[in-house]
């Protein structure tokens, strides 16, 4: 095993970096050696091309010349005149290498004798030196025939060659360093891209993806890379991946992009487009109503015009096609095409691809780009019908969830009206128990009264399999975990159970008492009757009753604002949100419908929902459609007739108060209603009337208002026209009176 420090080192040091360091060291070594050699050569006076023997001979000559100069100056100082002949001050050693002449006062002329080999170029060459009595300094210059420059000392070279190689080298080095410093300073201060990054580090996320390698180098030169990444909140791993993106092949690029948004990508063959198409399955956690999309990577070299032409003739059905451009040349044309919200094309230009790869939350980039380029309603996160399936679209109910999730598994009876969120709550429970270490949760929606057959079909068993065997099978699938079975739509099942003596319910009770399985049953009126009215029902003590009503106010506000905010849309002011939530009576589906309608009304580019949008939404068919369907809450037609009369009476009273859409403006008491029936000669039992009020309350049509009842949803009154409701009430009362009279007559 490698020691930890080596492992850490391997992690931190890349081969490329190591090679670069080695290259720099090699360069420093080479320059250092050169400088050292030149320096030594300068000290010794030997050029780099001198052979050692000649160099030694010249060394002796330089030494003799220095001695002769010294002697001549001594002579001058002693005698007051310059010697006529060298013999006057200097005894020449007969080494056959140097000759000396005094051609004029203060001048000594040195000749290289025949002792030097001819190939050295030194034989019979001359050098003159002149003494300046004022300064006491010697100057040197080549004579005729001159010594080869390679053998001259620096002070004997012509004035133009006064700098030594070392000085030259130092000069070059200084200039180079200065140039480098200036270059880097210029780069840092004058390059608009780098200057911009200094002011706004997050702009690093929004650079053309093809420019990243250059930026990578530049930031490296400036030693600012790590700091810049940190300031821009870019993970280094993301940065490295983005650097490799430009060089990657299509499959790898599609995979990189998909992974960033947790999508599953697979090739989609058979398209007539130049390039490659991939099918993406998007995760349910995405805060948009988009579970599938196509990614198109155009072939290299495709022109913008050709690409647009292909896209215009393309049929993708309702699938969104995301085009990731190959280069900046096609960006403008593809962006222009995709910006038309009439098509389902989305363009990821070079900058957006970069942001996609570098943003700490890439899903936000996806949402933003889709919101900019598609019709908002195509991707609206609001689910207006059925149980909420996307986690991001589920709001509130925290206390109810905690009641179920934070306890030991038990039995629950979830009672509530239609479209109040029973299914959404059960699905949320199922999601939270997914992969739970000790609870195995399974959701089952009944489609008729047959629980056993439904469960058997779900578990792919014969329809007639007994329910305890099915639960046993579930338990085996659960392993060591406890089983919690969520059973939705149980009204028909309970109705049938009531008729047949509760045989299957007894089985469920027995299974839960044995600890083999626990149940949550969800339903409306039949479940409520069984739990609250039918004292003989075995379900009364079966489990804890959870009554589902309005969504919490803050959750409604969150539902109305947060999904919009992700799309870059907001309400004009907070009062509108409060009004919306109030008008909807805190019913989640109505809040979602109004927000969805508001989105549909937004003009292109408009990002603010105003009062007009809200008013239009409140009068929309979609809202009225959601409010309808209350007229048959019970299987008993007589119960339904009583329900209708109560609702019409409340609506009539509401209209009489000016029809203000405020909850609880008018409250109808049970006593008043009984008196109304009495005046019309209708003999309805108090039990039946109380049952109707309870049913309407459970369905969230009415709610308690002091001593009486009023509409739970202020907007509910909008479906009644003042004149119409009188006629409707009169007709229902008359019909009930006739029915009562007939019944009485029959008796």
């Amino acid at each position: 095993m490698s020691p930890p420090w080596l492992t850490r080192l391997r992690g931190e040091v890349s081969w490329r970096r190591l090679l670069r360091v080695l290259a720099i060291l090699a360069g420093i070594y080479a320059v250092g050696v050169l400088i050292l050699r030149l320096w030594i050569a300068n000290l010794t006076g030997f050029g780099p091309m001198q052979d050692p023997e000649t160099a030694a001979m010249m060394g002796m000559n330089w030494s003799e010349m220095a001695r002769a100069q010294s002697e001549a100056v001594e002579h001058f100082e002693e005698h007051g005149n310059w010697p006529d002949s060298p013999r006057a001050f200097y005894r020449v050693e007969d080494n056959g290498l140097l000759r000396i002449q005094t051609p004029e006062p203060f001048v000594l002329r040195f000749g290289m004798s025949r002792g030097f080999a001819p190939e050295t170029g030194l034989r019979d060459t001359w050098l003159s030196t002149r003494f300046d009595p004022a300064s006491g300094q010697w100057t040197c210059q080549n004579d005729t025939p001159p010594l080869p420059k390679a053998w001259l000392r620096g002070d004997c070279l012509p004035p133009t060659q006064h700098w030594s190689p070392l000085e030259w080298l130092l000069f070059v080095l200084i200039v180079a360093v200065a140039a480098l410093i200036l270059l880097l300073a210029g780069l840092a201060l004058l390059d608009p891209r780098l200057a911009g990054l200094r002011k706004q580090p997050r702009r690093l996320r929004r650079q053309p993806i093809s420019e990243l390698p250059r930026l990578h180098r530049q930031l490296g030169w400036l030693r600012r890379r790590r700091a810049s990444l940190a300031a821009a909140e870019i993970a280094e791993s993301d940065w490295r991946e983005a650097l490799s993106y430009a060089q990657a092949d299509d499959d790898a690029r599609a995979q990189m992009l998909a992974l960033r948004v947790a999508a599953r990508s697979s090739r989609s063959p058979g398209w007539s487009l130049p390039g490659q198409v991939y099918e993406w399955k998007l995760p349910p956690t995405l805060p948009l109503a988009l579970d599938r999309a196509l990614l198109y990577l155009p072939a290299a070299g495709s022109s913008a015009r050709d690409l647009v032409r292909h896209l215009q003739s393309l049929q993708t059905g309702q699938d969104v096609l995301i085009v990731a451009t190959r280069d900046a040349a096609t960006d403008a044309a593809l962006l222009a095409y995709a910006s038309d919200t009439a098509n389902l094309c989305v363009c990821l230009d070079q900058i957006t691809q970069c942001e996609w790869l570098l943003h700490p939350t890439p899903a936000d980039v996806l949402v933003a780009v889709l919101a900019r380029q598609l019709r908002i309603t195509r991707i609206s996160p609001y689910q207006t019908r059925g149980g909420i399936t996307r986690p991001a679209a589920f709001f509130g109910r925290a206390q109810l969830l905690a009641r179920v999730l934070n306890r030991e598994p038990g039995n629950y009876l979830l009672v509530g009206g239609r479209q109040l969120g029973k299914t959404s709550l059960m699905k949320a429970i199922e999601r939270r128990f997914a992969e739970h270490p000790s609870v195995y949760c399974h959701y089952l929606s009944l489609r008729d009264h047959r629980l056993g057959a439904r469960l058997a079909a779900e578990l792919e068993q014969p329809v007639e399999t007994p329910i305890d065997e099915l639960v046993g099978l579930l338990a085996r699938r659960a392993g060591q975990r406890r089983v919690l079975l969520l059973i939705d739509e149980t009204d028909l099942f309970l109705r049938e159970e009531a008729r047949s003596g509760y045989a299957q319910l007894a089985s469920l009770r027995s299974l839960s008492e044995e600890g083999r399985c626990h149940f949550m049953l969800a339903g409306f009126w039949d479940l409520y009757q069984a739990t609250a009215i039918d004292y003989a029902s075995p379900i009364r003590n079966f489990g804890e009753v959870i009554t589902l009503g309005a969504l919490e106010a803050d959750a409604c506000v969150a539902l109305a604002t947060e999904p919009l905010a992700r799309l870059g849309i907001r309400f004009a002011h907070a009062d509108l949100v409060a009004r919306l939530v109030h008008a909807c009576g805190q019913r989640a589906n109505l809040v979602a419908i109004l927000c969805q309608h508001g989105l549909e009304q937004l003009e292109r580019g408009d990002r603010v929902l105003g009062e007009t949008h809200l008013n239009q939404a409140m009068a929309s068919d979609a809202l009225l459609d959601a409010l309808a369907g209350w007229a048959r809450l019970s299987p008993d037609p007589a119960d339904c007739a009583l329900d209708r009369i109560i609702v019409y009476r409340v609506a009539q009273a509401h209209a009489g108060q000016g029809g203000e859409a405020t909850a609880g403006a008018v409250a109808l008491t049970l006593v008043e209603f009984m008196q109304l029936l009495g005046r019309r000669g209708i003999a309805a039992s108090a039990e039946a009337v109380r049952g109707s009020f309870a049913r309407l309350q459970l369905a969230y049509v009415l709610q308690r208002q002091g001593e009486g009842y009023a509409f739970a949803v202020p907007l509910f009154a909008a479906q009644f026209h003042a004149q119409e409701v009188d006629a409707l009430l009169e007709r229902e009362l008359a019909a009930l009176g006739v029915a009562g009279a007939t019944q009485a007559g029959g008796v």
Partner: protein
Amino acid sequence: MSPIDISVVHARVRLCPQSVPDTMPVSDFPSLLVRHMRRIRASAAGIASEIGMSREAVNNWRNGDSVPSRKHRDKVVACAAYLRLSELETNELLAAVGFEPEFPAEHDRVVPAATSAVGALLDRLQQLRPYPILMLLTPAHLGQPPERAAILADAQRRYGADNVLHLQPPFSLHADAAGYFSALAEQCGFRDVASDYAFEAALSRRLQSGRPLFCLVSRFEQGDPLLRDVLAGILRSLSEMHSGQLHLLICGGAALADLKYQGGDLSLLNIAASASWPELAAADIAVLADRAGIAAFDAERVLRLSGGHPLLAPAALALLAEAPGRSDADLIEALATHAPLWQSFLPLLSDATARAAITERLGQERLAMAQPYLLDPLLRRLYWANLVVARRHPDGNWLEWRCAAVRRAGVLILADLDAGA
């Protein structure tokens, strides 16, 4: 008010133009009936039981010994449904005995620019998340669904021919579960299906292919209510299990709307979005004129006179082509005697209360605020009979009589009824 003598009104209806197409001789009825019975091996007893007539009566029809009387028109329609006849075949059978068609013939039926309407409908269906379930609710004379062939063709283009199903639940009120789901399975190309769970399993397997499956469901509201509810449960369950994969277009009229808004127990319909078929526009009149070979026409006038009624519009167009100089008053009077209007009105006038209410309403310009589901049963019936229509005004959507000819027809019928009484 006194009871209505319907025979008086029927006599009036027989006088109306277009009541009997002259292309089909009456004597064809027995041979047509025999042919259709043989096709599904239906017995006279089976038909008799289904339509509530005696076996002898049906045998007499089959042998040509007698033909159905006008009061038995509904029986003939029920018989056609039992024999699983197409709309065209049903119309042929009715024409063979001298009755008006039940379904508007393709060449007479005016449909809005079908391709765009169908396209918009399927666009909307495909956009519904997470449950792509759409109910197309259409009033009388538009067909259920309108432009079925165009819908199926467009669906095949979008989903692929192998991924398009058309479910037509059996009409019979006495079908057993095995027969009901076996018939549905046959329509889907499934074999060895004899129960609801087998049908659900087969459809579920089909959905596991990963490709969205389009399913057009027509006649959903008809047939056995219990089995219909089971079918609804299956479709709901599969929609949930295969989220976004099963694209359902459920077509129907008044009964389907009642199921959605009054049924309450069918969560399939609770989670379905509703759609309506667009009203006629000038472009549709142009298409109709082109089909009829009429070169010169005033589309706006046709629309105004007919109120966009799918059967009155071709009649108005034809009248204008014959005599362009006729006044609006003349044309309204002529259109008011159009047989389909009378057929639509008459069932609504069967009781005194309704007659009084309609008499009062005929004097009103606006009948009520339009709602997705009308609370007043009489208004609901008028709406589904296509006699009233919701129109947008600055102060909201209001229900109005389709056109002056409809109101005039109502007045004439009431006058006849009063005279007969």
